[in-house]
């Protein structure tokens, strides 16, 4: 590996087997052995991730919750081992991914400093040399002989952070540690970061806070669903991250196998984005199957939970047959925000549920600047002057 590289990650993949019911006993292992039913779901957390970090880089890793960031960090730290691919690390890397790992509430602050130090690879002599500095930085001089369980959570985090920054390694990994303590302590952390940046310390920063990415990092990558979807300048990455947060539906959208449901705008084109007061058409095509669907109900639900509107074919005296395509058109006189469609298919007298999709297609309604009113419903209204 070239000397100027600190980390080289090549085509790293990691898949977890998530058992439906964990086989933690021998009986379960036997049962699933005989059933030949493996009973787990493979979840691909990282898929062929490659990137390089140069020495002296302040490298940002951003991504939404569940995107695979933490798994990547654990792979870098050597806590997990990759299924495929290669990770090369040039130098010593911080071995922990969370502050205060191994803190024991029954031990005193002092004892915990030594225990934590040993976990980071320092012996008692080395820790004694650093001890005063750690305590001073954490501002906990008076409390060191008290048990950790009597510390406030802020005090614990301060102590953990102070130990962590003393444990200088060639490559530092910092995960979401910026928001610790009160404002005065945060200022201290900021100073430490500035110092790292100016002294060309190699740092990997994992965070949701785009302002710190823009402020400190000189390079960043954006991870989504286990793959790197962008890498480069922190400002670009921050912009892409914000876009990802506000455009993509967070939950997986489900569907029924018996019908196709599509959303169209006024001109008949498929769309997910609508303006207020615009018309939206829900197109439902009933596939051929052996289920006799007598009634279809469609509801508009705001993602915050409010049931906005609903109607079914029986109410509207529409008879339906297999192979039919129906259009349900509504004028979106509703407040701006995220919505989704719920729909149900009913048989027999129109009440027996054949299939029900709680979270169908999602759509976004954006504000009409010409609107003359506010709120969750746009109502026909008039002002009169007497």
């Amino acid at each position: 590996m070239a000397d100027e590289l600190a980390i080289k990650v090549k085509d790293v993949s990691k898949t977890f087997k998530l058992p439906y019911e964990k086989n933690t006993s021998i009986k379960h292992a036997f049962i699933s052995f005989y059933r030949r039913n493996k009973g787990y779901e493979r979840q691909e957390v990282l898929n062929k991730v490659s990137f390089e970090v140069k020495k002296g880089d302040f490298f940002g890793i951003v991504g939404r919750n569940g995107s695979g960031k933490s798994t990547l960090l654990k792979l870098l730290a050597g806590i997990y081992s990759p299924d495929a691919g290669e990770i090369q690390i040039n130098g010593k890397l911080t071995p922990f991914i969370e502050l205060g790992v191994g803190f024991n509430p029954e031990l005193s602050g002092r004892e915990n400093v030594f225990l934590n130090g040993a976990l980071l690879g320092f012996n008692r002599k080395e820790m004694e040399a650093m001890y005063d500095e750690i305590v001073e930085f954490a501002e906990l001089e008076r409390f060191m002989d008290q048990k950790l369980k009597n510390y406030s959570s802020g005090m614990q985090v301060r102590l953990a952070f102070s130990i962590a920054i003393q444990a200088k390694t060639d490559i530092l990994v910092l995960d979401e540690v910026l928001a610790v303590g009160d404002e005065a302590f945060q200022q201290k952390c900021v100073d430490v970061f500035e110092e790292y940046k100016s002294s060309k310390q190699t740092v990997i920063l994992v965070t949701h806070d785009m302002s710190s990415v823009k402020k400190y990092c000189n390079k960043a990558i954006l991870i989504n669903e286990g793959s790197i979807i962008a890498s480069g300048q922190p400002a670009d990455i921050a912009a892409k991250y914000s876009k990802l947060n506000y455009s993509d539906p967070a939950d997986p959208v489900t569907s029924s196998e018996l019908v196709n449901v599509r959303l169209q705008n006024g001109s008949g084109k498929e769309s997910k984005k609508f303006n207020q007061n615009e018309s939206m058409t829900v197109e439902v095509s009933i596939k051929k199957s052996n289920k006799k669907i007598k009634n279809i109900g469609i509801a508009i639900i705001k993602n915050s939970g409010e049931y906005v509107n609903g109607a079914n074919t029986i109410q509207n005296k529409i008879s339906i047959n297999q192979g039919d395509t129906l259009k349900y058109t509504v004028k979106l006189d509703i407040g701006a925000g995220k919505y989704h469609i719920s729909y149900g298919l009913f048989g027999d007298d129109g009440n027996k549920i054949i299939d029900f999709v709680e979270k169908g297609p999602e759509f976004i309604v954006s504000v009409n600047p010409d609107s003359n009113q506010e709120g969750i419903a746009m109502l026909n209204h008039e002002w009169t002057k007497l």
Partner: protein
Amino acid sequence: MKQYISKQNRALLSELVRTDFKLRYQGSVLGYAWSLLRPLLLFLILYIVFVKFLRIGGDIPHFPVYLLLGIVLWNFFSEMTSQSLGSIVGRGDLIRKIRIPRWTIVFSSSISALINLGLNLLVIAVFLVINKVELSFSILWLPLILLEIYALGLGLSLFLSAAFVKYRDMSYIWEVILQAGFYLTPILYPLAMITNETFQKILLMNPIAQAIQDARYSLVSHESITVHSLLGGSWYILIPFILVVMILLGGLFYFRKESKYFAENI
């Protein structure tokens, strides 16, 4: 090999053992004194029950010490294995969040057990003096015998702690095995009470039984039945030692293989 005894690993081990010790008697009035008081009180009970009431082992010289030595060695073995068994799962928070050599965790609980053994042996020494046992040069064998028990315990500890991550039944299974082992090993009763010589031989194939009898021979009384005295020059005498080596290597191998996946399986 050198990496295993690196400065960092030694610091980590000593800190883990220290923590273990500090927490063990947390909140008790007598504190560390309990680590001596506990075996003393246990010995007292056994002495009264077995020597005074049941009058077992009357024909064995220094039977009280003979009995205590057996108990101490068995307790060391059972404490070491059952504490190590849960050690990896018990330290799950560490394993999931920090890169430390996994074996240090099992190793530290085995060292805690060793320290306890040391304290217990001190108590035994006191009883040796009280009972006026005459020591011979065969005491020089004792460290080797202790090493054998430790190696056996370590092999089992490595295997059990790794298996426990996957199969939580292990703790119950091991509890039953230990209970059975306690009665199948001549601890409370002298081996001579079993009149069938074949059974005697079979019982002594168990490394723990062999080690306890050898320790009694070396420390307390040359009248103790040992593998050597029973089987003489036959190659069967090697079976217990081969078992120990196999268990130790098997445990090491299994632990190495499984330890990669501890973080995701706990």
